[in-house]
């Protein structure tokens, strides 16, 4: 297996449709107008020497190595900055060019160390390659004069020399090897959009510097790795490459962190992962990545990973390691016993949004076909179930309407309840790029997120609403659009039901929905809201991106409908640059929903009561399926507390930490007789488990993930599972132990079964994915290449449906006891409950969850920066340290939930979305007071966690 080849064309592709023909070294070649001569040459198969150009960033023209001669033009223009023109005759190799290039290389090498043999980039260095390419044979200048290479010259300290910067946990910066090509600076600006790097100094003295001559770790750098990837030398190098050496083969796979679903090349040496490099052909990320996917994979070999199955009688017992056979037999007999004793519906399971489609499909199949009920749910319940419901009602499908590329064509963006630069970083970077090109931005968020104002980006409007008032704000936007006549009548008449529109329009036009009226309780100034509405309706292609700040409310589904209304009213559906875009959290949240993880739906979103659909599966599986919807996660826990739900199989989810109202979750789990947890680590839920089945990482299995744009991406196994089995094998073996006759030998066979039973996946197979790279469902005979944009010529449901969206204040109200509103979110370096990222060097950026509080609220309570504070709600209390900032408005506090010791969900309540029971994470009435240490609950819980992680015959696990 070789390294996956990637061609560097030197400059980005041109989008022009006008074609230009020219001759390069006697070859005629036709390329789009605006293409550089360098890129055109590469397309003709001729590689012009280059150092400062790379196709991820715009050309800069500083190294003078890529010169060419053009007949009829004077001089030697740089091919990277010279665009093609019709009829040009270009020569890339002449006597004059050869001399110039040798001279250039000689100068570079004279200020570059010659320790190639021991250099980490040996074999992967463009400076080396170019020296070879131009035929450099000797260097006439020595190191005696000015140089950056040596710490001491002529016995004296060399002021030009700088030591290595090793502050970043994942890569090093060695200034002595820098050739000042500025590729890193441009990558940071153009690709990542962080502007962390500059070239300081001038001429010979110039060099790269993070921020104002800081170390990388203290600078603005977010450790995305784009600069490291862009660097042609060993100046910026992954520490893993320094440690291990150059990879010998690579495999394309998909990041297992967030819903962007970035494609990576896993670069390997044997079974050792050398590094993850974002893949340029990845259609979600286009060669970019964030710190998590790029660097934070160390958890897969973390010492706390559990590799053997374990059992215990009672949750107060220490764990006992057992064989796989014993574990399967135990689970099977326990589940059968429970069903015998308490009835068929007394057990269920939870599928994972972190596992593959194939694994998820198997878990729901086990539950429906093996347990004989529909008690299956997934963590999407607690994040995007309202998206499914809301968009399903309005458009006829839960699908987000666009691909990520669509953002390149948008003119006005509304970002509501989402923080993409932290939670969906690569999409965030792509969005920022478009904003820097001039697209306008409206942010609707209680908090001043990074997008509101960051280098070279400023939102036209930030509407800082009170948590819980989304529906009122979005309906008020519609009010302005309708009453000011800014709606797109032609679109509505053609695509939607006009009488429903009229009904809706008269509803939103009522004066009580005007921004002047709603301002009193939303806190959003009417003028700003009107301005935002006008901008969105009239500014060209309008797109809406939203996240959990929309869905995790008691009116989550209603807000999704309000968003759909807004998009339809302004005609922003069905073409690139527009649409309704849910930013889904976990890597395979989309896929787990597609695969029938909801208790009322079979794969492909078909209701369980539909006889024809059940029939398809019944025939194939040879069982009778229950036609009643099963329990959702919160209902399972309720039923457990009531005593009718006794056993659960949880694959790859940590509901105790991720679900709201921790005390209710733990009470539910504690009431069960057999809790089976399958995961990489003894997670928090495992504190209540009786059986632990070790899981495998995405590096250790084959499968597919479906990202937030419905893109089905391959996950490819690059190493043997440390625990012995991929997760799908574990589920299969468990099913066999329960008497099911399953014989999958490879996940591709599971995908074949999905394709055979699910029309939107009809054309999907591993062979097909190998051929086309990835596809966005629906992918069937009608759409063989998938469906990047939905609803192009009409809505899936026929006519788009306008739905009245009445604001209803949540029952979670502030009062004298709990006067502040708590809302929750994520940060870049950590992922969800943090089980993985906390086990990597990413902790360097986020050691603990902090409570953000406005200076005014802090002062009233005598709280200073860094103080321990007690955070209490009617559900419970916890303590954490304060971070005083005006990013949050007075009356609002904010925290993340990445660390188990914080237990932020002890605070959140069991209120939930009216339609889907998606919990109301984003609004909790709280009080804050100074505190001097952890709450009783935290102390008790720590003790419980410590006790429940004991393994017989082993030292206590550290966490």
């Amino acid at each position, binding site marked *: 297996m070789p390294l996956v080849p990637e061609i560097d064309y030197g400059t980005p592709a041109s989008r022009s449709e006008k074609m230009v023909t020219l001759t390069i070294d006697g070859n005629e070649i036709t390329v789009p107008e605006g293409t550089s001569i360098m890129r055109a040459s590469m397309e003709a198969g001729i590689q012009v020497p280059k150092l400062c150009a790379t196709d991820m960033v715009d050309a800069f023209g500083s190294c003078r190595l890529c010169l060419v001669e053009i007949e009829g033009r004077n001089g030697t223009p740089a091919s990277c900055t010279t665009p093609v023109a019709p009829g040009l005759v270009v020569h890339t190799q002449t006597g004059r060019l050869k001399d110039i290039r040798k001279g250039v290389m000689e100068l570079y090498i004279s200020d570059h160390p010659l320790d190639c043999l021991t250099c980490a980039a040996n074999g992967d260095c463009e400076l080396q390659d170019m020296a070879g390419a131009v035929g450099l044979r000797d260097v006439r200048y020595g190191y005696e004069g000015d140089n950056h290479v040596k710490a001491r010259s002529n016995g004296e300290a060399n002021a030009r020399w700088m030591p290595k910067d090793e502050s970043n946990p994942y890569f090093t910066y060695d200034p002595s090897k820098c050739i000042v090509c500025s590729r890193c600076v441009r990558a940071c600006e153009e690709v990542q959009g962080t502007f962390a790097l500059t070239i300081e100094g001038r001429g010979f003295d110039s060099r790269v510097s993070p921020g104002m001559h800081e170390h990388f770790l203290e600078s603005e750098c977010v450790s995305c790795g784009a600069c490291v990837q862009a660097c042609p030398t060993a100046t910026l190098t992954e520490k893993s490459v320094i440690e291990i050496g150059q990879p010998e083969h690579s495999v394309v796979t998909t990041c297992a962190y967030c819903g962007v679903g970035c494609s990576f090349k896993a670069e390997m040496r044997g079974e050792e992962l050398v590094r993850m490099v974002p893949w340029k052909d990845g259609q979600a990320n286009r060669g970019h990545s964030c710190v998590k996917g790029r660097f934070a994979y160390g958890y897969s070999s973390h010492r706390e990973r559990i590799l053997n199955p374990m059992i215990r009688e009672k949750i107060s017992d220490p764990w006992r390691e057992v064989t796989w056979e014993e574990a399967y037999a135990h689970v099977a007999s326990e589940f059968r016993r429970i069903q015998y004793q308490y009835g068929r519906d007394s057990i269920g399971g939870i599928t994972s949004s972190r596992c593959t489609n194939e694994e998820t499909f198997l878990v729901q199949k086990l539950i429906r076909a093996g347990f004989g009920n529909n008690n299956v749910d997934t963590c999407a319940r607690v994040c995007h179930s309202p998206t499914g419901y809301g968009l399903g009602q309005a458009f006829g499908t839960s699908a987000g309407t666009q691909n990520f590329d669509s953002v390149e064509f948008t003119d006005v963006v509304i970002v509501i309840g989402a923080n993409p630069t932290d939670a969906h970083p690569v999409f965030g970077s792509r969005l920022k790029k478009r904003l820097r090109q001039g697209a306008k931005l409206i942010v609707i968020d209680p908090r001043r997120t990074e997008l509101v104002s960051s280098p070279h980006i400023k939102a036209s409007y930030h509407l800082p609403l009170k948590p819980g008032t989304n529906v009122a704000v979005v309906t008020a936007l519609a009010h302005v659009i309708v009453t000011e006549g800014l709606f797109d009548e032609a679109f509505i008449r053609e695509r939607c039901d006009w009488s429903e529109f009229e009904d809706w329009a008269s509803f939103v036009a009522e004066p009580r929905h005007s921004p002047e009226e709603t301002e009193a309780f939303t806190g959003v100034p009417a003028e700003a809201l009107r301005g935002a509405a006008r901008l969105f309706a009239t500014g060209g292609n309008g797109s809406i991106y939203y996240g959990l700040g929309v869905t995790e409310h008691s009116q989550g589904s209603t807000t999704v409908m309000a968003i759909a209304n807004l998009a339809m009213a302004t005609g922003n559906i069905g073409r690139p640059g527009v649409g309704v875009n849910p930013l889904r959290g976990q890597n395979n949240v989309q896929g787990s929903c597609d695969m029938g993880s909801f208790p*009322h739906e079979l794969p492909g979103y078909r209701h369980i009561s539909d006889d024809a659909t059940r029939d398809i599966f019944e025939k194939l599986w040879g069982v009778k399926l229950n036609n009643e919807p099963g*329990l959702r996660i919160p209902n399972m826990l309720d039923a457990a507390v009531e005593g009718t739900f006794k056993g659960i199989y949880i694959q790859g989810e940590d509901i105790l930490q991720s679900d709201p109202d921790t005390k209710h979750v733990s009470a539910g789990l504690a009431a069960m007789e057999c809790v089976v947890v399958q995961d990489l680590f003894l997670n928090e839920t495992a504190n209540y488990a009786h059986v632990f089945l070790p899981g495998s990482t995405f590096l250790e299995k084959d499968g597919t993930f479906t990202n937030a744009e419905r893109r089905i991406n391959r996950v490819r196994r690059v190493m043997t599972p440390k625990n012995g089995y991929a997760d799908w094998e574990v589920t299969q073996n468990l099913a066999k132990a329960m008497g099911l006759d399953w014989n999958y030998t490879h996940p591709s066979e599971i995908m074949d079964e999905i394709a055979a039973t699910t029309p939107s996946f009809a054309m999907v197979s591993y062979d097909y994915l190998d051929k086309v790279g990835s596809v966005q469902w629906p992918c069937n005979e009608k759409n063989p290449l998938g469906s990047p944009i939905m609803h192009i010529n009409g809505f899936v449901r026929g006519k788009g449906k306008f739905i*009245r969206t*009445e604001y209803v204040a949540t029952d979670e109200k502030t009062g004298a006891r709990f006067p502040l509103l708590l809302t929750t979110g994520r940060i870049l370096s950590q992922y969800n409950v943090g089980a993985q990222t906390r086990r990597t060097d990413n902790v360097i950026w986020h050691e603990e969850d902090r409570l953000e509080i406005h200076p005014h609220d802090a002062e009233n309570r005598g709280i200073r920066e860094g103080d321990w504070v007690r955070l209490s709600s009617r559900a419970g209390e916890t303590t954490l340290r304060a971070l005083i900032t005006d990013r949050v408005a007075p009356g609002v506090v904010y925290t993340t939930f990445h660390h188990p010791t914080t237990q932020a969900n002890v605070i959140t309540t069991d209120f939930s979305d009216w*339609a889907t029971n998606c919990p109301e994470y984003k609004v909790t009435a709280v009080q804050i007071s100074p505190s001097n240490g952890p709450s009783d609950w935290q102390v008790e819980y720590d003790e419980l966690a410590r006790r429940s992680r004991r393994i017989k015959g082993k030292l206590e696990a550290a966490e």
Partner: protein
Amino acid sequence: MSEGNKIVRMANQIATFFHSQPASEGPNGVATHINKFWEPRMRRQLFDLVDNHGGEGLDSLVLEAVPLIRRPPPAEVPPAQAAAPAAP
């Protein structure tokens, strides 16, 4: 909060949404929603509230919807109890 109350709250939340919809959709909307998403146990609790407790606390729209809600079959008797009816 007791589980009965939870059922009431969930049903009323659904009703609240449909109160704002065109009147013709109301009861049907509530019933369809409950039929689609509520597991039989939950519907049984709802019917118990209506049949035996006068629908206490339920929104009027929920009560209007009740005739349209599918009555779940009686709770399954676990095999263990069926086998030994006298056992405690």
